[in-house]
Each structure stands twice: as structure tokens, then as C-alpha cells.
């Protein structure tokens, strides 16, 4: 089906032509039957009149009627004819209008009138009726024998009427068909305009106009579900495109500085070889490691967002796991002058060891790097399994308005890059890993100078509100 409009036009025209033709044919047949019925009624009436006026006579029968009564039977304007036969087939009476011709005696006629068509001697069309009857004898006389009466009339007028009716019906049908032929495409075009507009709007959408939405309320009821679904689809595609664009843009942006460092260092070393020292090579390696770390984090985050993480399940003692991971950060915390309080209960959880390790590392690193010094870090694994891990640390530059941005990719409180040590990917990655295991990671300001981040079961989605 290449065009819905053309298909509908053809189908509707075919259906209307078929139904209209059948209707007209039925009308013609009904009208023809009616005309014939009326003709037959008239013929029957004439026959009954003749049979009523037929009296038995001594030499046969006597038909008592006048030309004024039935003018068509005289020989001046011969339109109607009759003949009467006795049971032996002898002709007893006939109309003057017959002249020298005879009507055909049909055998087997009963008392119920029968009708038939025939041709007169001159080839003219005629219609006849015939039946048997017993002429009513005058009072006191014996009843006569049954007679056969055949009455006929010229039917050429009937044929002309039927021809005119047919011509009228054909002309009317043709006119209606031509009108329909003109009307249907226009009606369909008008009726399908909303669909055509929807199609044009859909065709105009490309990767740069994914913010387009179809005006659902302005559409006909039948198209609204389509527009709603298309809008939903567009929203998802736009979100996906936006995420991809942001991902590419973020990667490009974050790689610009290490690339600038690398390029400038290399060009400097080539241009002024004497100025090159051993620090140059160490720095080149550090830049490469930084870019490698950035790419690894980005890939992990992308895989997580695309649902490609396949979290395994193992029983892990959470208190031990946190204690082991903390060992990597204890020295750094001490060097920054941070005090640490550990309250680690041995709680068994079902978790992916690698993902849990990464979540804990990011939570702990965040606390150690961003706690204000001197300050306090409190790490808790509660006995009650509502919260899995809770880490609180003192802060002096974090506001409640910053909390929603903590889990945005590449967000850092300081716009600068912290010397390439932090990518702004740790917490987004930790949250993505937590969600991959059906957990949640949420952050609150416990007080204006205490930040708290908690790893939670989904049933305990929100840590207690700050006091």
C-alpha cells in the first residue's frame, strides 16, 4: 500500500459504485415489477369485468358491454382484446378489436388468472391473462358450462415506460458516480490532513530537532495515541542523544588539559632540548596515567548507564570490607590532619565484591579529599541493616544547593581540575554501581558543616533528615 489516500479513494469509489449500481438495479427492477403489476391489475380488472358481463346464451355466450364502457375492445382503437372458449375449444366470443387475428388458447388455465407476454400478428408486444370461469346465469336458469377467457392488451407503452425509467436510472447513477469521483478525493484529503501534517512534522525531525513535540490536543482523537507514543519516543531519543553528546563533550573537555600538558611538554622538549630534564618524562607518564584513569572511569560509567554491568552476588562481611578499604586512605587522612571514628558492625550482605570495593573507595576518597582540615570523619556500618554504610565528614565549603550536583558527571566544587587528581566521576560511578546492585547512594547535609553520604537498601531510600 503506497498511499493510504489513493487506497481509500479506490476502495470507496469501488464500494460506492457497487452499492450504487446494485441499488439502482434493485430500484429499476422494483419499479418495473410495480409497472407490470399495475398493468396486470388493469388487465385483470378488464378480464373480471368481461367475465362478469358474460352470460350464458342459447347458442353459447353473450357478452354485454358497450364500447363506451370498454373502448379499447372495439375495432376503431384496438388496444385490448379478448376471446372466450368453451371446454371443447370452440371459440364462443371475441372482441371486435381482434379483427382477423386470434389469441392463442393456452392449455391448463385454471380459475386463478395467469399472465404472459406474446407478440401480436404485427410483431407488436402484448400481455395477456387467462382463466376459466362459469358465467353467472340469470335467476332461475341453469348454470352454464365453465369457459376459458383470455384478455390481452398491447404492452408497447409499458416497454417505453420501462426504457425511460432505465435511462433515468442510468443517468442518475452516472451523475452520482461522477460527483462521488470528484468529491471523495477532496473529502479524503481534507479528512486526512491531520495525518498528513503529522507525517510532515515527523519527516522534518532530525538529530538537531529532537526537542520537537507533536501537539497532542490539536490532533483528532484517533491520532492522539500515536502522537503521545511518538512524543514519548522522541523524549527518550532526545535524552539518549543528549547523554551521548554530553558524554562526548565531557570526554573531549576533560582530555583537553592533559592533552595540552602533553603537547606543550613535547614541543618544549623538541624546541629546547637543553631545557629538558628528568621531570619531563615523569610528567609525561603522569599525564598518560591521568588520561588512562579518566578513560577507565568514563567507560565504567558508560557501561553502567547502558545496563551492561553484570553484578555477581557473594556474601560479604561489610564491616571487614570497609575496614580493609579504609586502610588505603588512613595515611592520607592522617596527613591532612583528619580524625577518624570507626564503628563497623559485622553485617553480611549479598554484593558484587568489585562493585562494592569501588563504591567504598569512592565514598572514602570523597571524605578524605574534601573534608575540611582539621576535621572529623565518621565511618559507620550499623548493626541494623537499614543503612549499609554511612560516612560523615566535616566540610566548610559545601552548601545544600550543591547536593544534587554531587552525582553529576565531572562536577567538582572547584571548577579547576585539582591538578588532575580528581575527575568528578567518583560519586556518579559509585551511585551507578550501587544501583546496579539494587542499592542507593544518597547524600545529605547533616548540619551546616557536616556532610553525610550513605549506602542504602532500596527500602530505606532516604537517610534521616538533617536536624
Amino acid at each position: 500500500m503506497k498511499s493510504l489516500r489513493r487506497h481509500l479513494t479506490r476502495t470507496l469509489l469501488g464500494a460506492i459504485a457497487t452499492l450504487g449500481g446494485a441499488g439502482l438495479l434493485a430500484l429499476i427492477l422494483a419499479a418495473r415489477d410495480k409497472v407490470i403489476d399495475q398493468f396486470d391489475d388493469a388487465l385483470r380488472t378488464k378480464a373480471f369485468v368481461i367475465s362478469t358481463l358474460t352470460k350464458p346464451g342459447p347458442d353459447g355466450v353473450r357478452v354485454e358491454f358497450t364500447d363506451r364502457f370498454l373502448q379499447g375492445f372495439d375495432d376503431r382503437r384496438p388496444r385490448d382484446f379478448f376471446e372466450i372458449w368453451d371446454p371443447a375449444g370452440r371459440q364462443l366470443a371475441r372482441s371486435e378489436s381482434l379483427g382477423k387475428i386470434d389469441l392463442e388458447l393456452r392449455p391448463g388455465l385454471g380459475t386463478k388468472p395467469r399472465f404472459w407476454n406474446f407478440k401480436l400478428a404485427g410483431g407488436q408486444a402484448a400481455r395477456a391473462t387467462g382463466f376459466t370461469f362459469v358465467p353467472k346465469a340469470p335467476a332461475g336458469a341453469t348454470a352454464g358450462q365453465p369457459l376459458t377467457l383470455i384478455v390481452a392488451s398491447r404492452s408497447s407503452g409499458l416497454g417505453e415506460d420501462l426504457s425511460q425509467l432505465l435511462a433515468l436510472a442510468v443517468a442518475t447513477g452516472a451523475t452520482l458516480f461522477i460527483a462521488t469521483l470528484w468529491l471523495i478525493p477532496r473529502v479524503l484529503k481534507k479528512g486526512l490532513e491531520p495525518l498528513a501534517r503529522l507525517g510532515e512534522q515527523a519527516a522534518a525531525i532530525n538529530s538537531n530537532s529532537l526537542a520537537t513535540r507533536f501537539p497532542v490536543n490539536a490532533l483528532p482523537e484517533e491520532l492522539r495515541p500515536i502522537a503521545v507514543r511518538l512524543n514519548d519516543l522522541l523524549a527518550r531519543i532526545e535524552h539518549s542523544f543528549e547523554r551521548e553528546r554530553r558524554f562526548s563533550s565531557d570526554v573531549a573537555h576533560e582530555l583537553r588539559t592533559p592533552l595540552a600538558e602533553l603537547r606543550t611538554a613535547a614541543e618544549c622538549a623538541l624546541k629546547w632540548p637543553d631545557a629538558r630534564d628528568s621531570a619531563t618524562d615523569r610528567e609525561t607518564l603522569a599525564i598518560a596515567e591521568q588520561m588512562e584513569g579518566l578513560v577507565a572511569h568514563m567507560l565504567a560509567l558508560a557501561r553502567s548507564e547502558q545496563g551492561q554491568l553484570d553484578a555477581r552476588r557473594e556474601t560479604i562481611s561489610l564491616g571487614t570490607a570497609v575496614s580493609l578499604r579504609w586502610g588505603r586512605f588512613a595515611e592520607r587522612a592522617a596527613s591532612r590532619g583528619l580524625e577518624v571514628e570507626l564503628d563497623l558492625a559485622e553485617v553480611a550482605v549479598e554484593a558484587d565484591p568489585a562493585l562494592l570495593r569501588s563504591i567504598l573507595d569512592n565514598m572514602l576518597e570523597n571524605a578524605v579529599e574534601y573534608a575540611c582540615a582539621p576535621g572529623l570523619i565518621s565511618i559507620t556500618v550499623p548493626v541494623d541493616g537499614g543503612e549499609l554504610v554511612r560516612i560523615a565528614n566535616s566540610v566548610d565549603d559545601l552548601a545544600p544547593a550543591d547536593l544534587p550536583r554531587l552525582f553529576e558527571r565531572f562536577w567538582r566544587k572547584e571548577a579547576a581540575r585539582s591538578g588532575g587528581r580528581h575527575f568528578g566521576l567518583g560519586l556518579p560511578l559509585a551511585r551507578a554501581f550501587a544501583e546496579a546492585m539494587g542499592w542507593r547512594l544518597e547524600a545529605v547535609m547533616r548540619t551546616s558543616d557536616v556532610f553525610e553520604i550513605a549506602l542504602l537498601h532500596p527500602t530505606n531510600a532516604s537517610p534521616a533528615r538533617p536536624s
Partner: protein
Amino acid sequence: MRLLVVEDSPRLRRSLGTSLRQSGYAVDLAGDGEEGLWLATSNEYDAIVLDIMLPKMDGLQVLSALRSRGGRAHVLLLTARDSVSDRVKGLESGADDYLVKPFALEEFLARVKALCRRAYGQKQDVMKVGDLEVDMLKRLARRGGRPIELTAREFMLLEYLARRRGEVVSRTEIENHIYDGQIDPISNVIDSAICSLRKKLAAAGDESLIHTRRGMGYVLEMSNEEIG
């Protein structure tokens, strides 16, 4: 020429400092916005290379604060942001030029050089004072067509005097623009450098070009252009 580079990446800061010094500039380095603003307002720089994303105070804030305090040094913004709106925002904040990371070192040096030329209202790479030609591009000096052997520091001094030819240049200005402000105020390093440069120029030509204005400083010009 004395420059200030404000860049939070230590590695990039180091490379830029090295390349600029190797190109004959006196360079001060700062790692965050506050330090950069302090240096920019405390010293007189021919040009400032300013990163936008800086700790403590971002580059655009530094630029606005510098301009509001009357700082007129030409500023080259360095940034990883490359959208048109970012560039427009940077230039509208008072920057003179904008360079997106990563960049070619040659382009960076060329842009810094262009800013320094603009600082002295010059458009040519070769400056002439009488029969003395100072080629900034090739970093060569000739007199009467004969090349003059100069150390890097001597050439920087000659270049600075040539850019301000006809003007009296004070010792403090020379100290600030050529020596990173790191010399002892009571030493005679500048007088010695002037003396050495004057001798080399005199050896190459008949006429003395560097003249002393007692109590004021030095001026590079032909004798008949001397200030009365």
C-alpha cells in the same frame, strides 16, 4: 618583556614557563586565581596568560577584578571551553585573545608576541633606531647591516628599550620587565647590563644610541633625537 602565567595545572604551568623563558620573556607563575590577581595587580606585566578554570577564583573573575582595578595588561585566556559563547564571554570580560587547549606551542608563542607588540603599539617584527635593527622574530640585532653578538638577557634589554624607543625607561621598569623582580634593589646589575649593551652597540657603529638621563633612566635613540 615580563609575563604572568596563571594556570592551575602544574605540568602545563611549568611547560609554558619554560617555553616563554626560552623565548626571551621574564615570566612569573601563579597556580590559582587569588595568587594570579595579587601578582597581576602588584606588578606591571606586558601580557598575562590566564587560564579560566582556576581554584579559589576563576580566570574571568580575575580578569574582571584586574580591569576594575585599572589593570591594562593584555590578557590571553587559556581554556578547555571552546564554544562560541564561551569565547564571546571571555572576550567580553576584557580579554584580548583566546586560545583553546590543546594548542600548538608556536601558536601560543605567536599570540603572546602579538599581545606584547600591541602593548607597545607596534605592528612590525623589526624595529629600527638609526642604523640599528632589532629583529624580534629572529632575535637578532644588527648595526649597519653587521650582526651584534648579544646574550639572551642583553637582547631582552635591547628589545625592551627598542619597543620604548625615544622614551626614558627607568631602572625599576627594566627590573620589572627583564629580571622578574628578583634582583637586589641596591645592586648595579642593571647599570652593568646597560653598560655592556652600550659597548656592544658602540663597537658596531659610530654613534652612541643608549643615553643616560641622570636620576631618571635610559633612552634608546639617535643623538639628534635627544631630549633637550
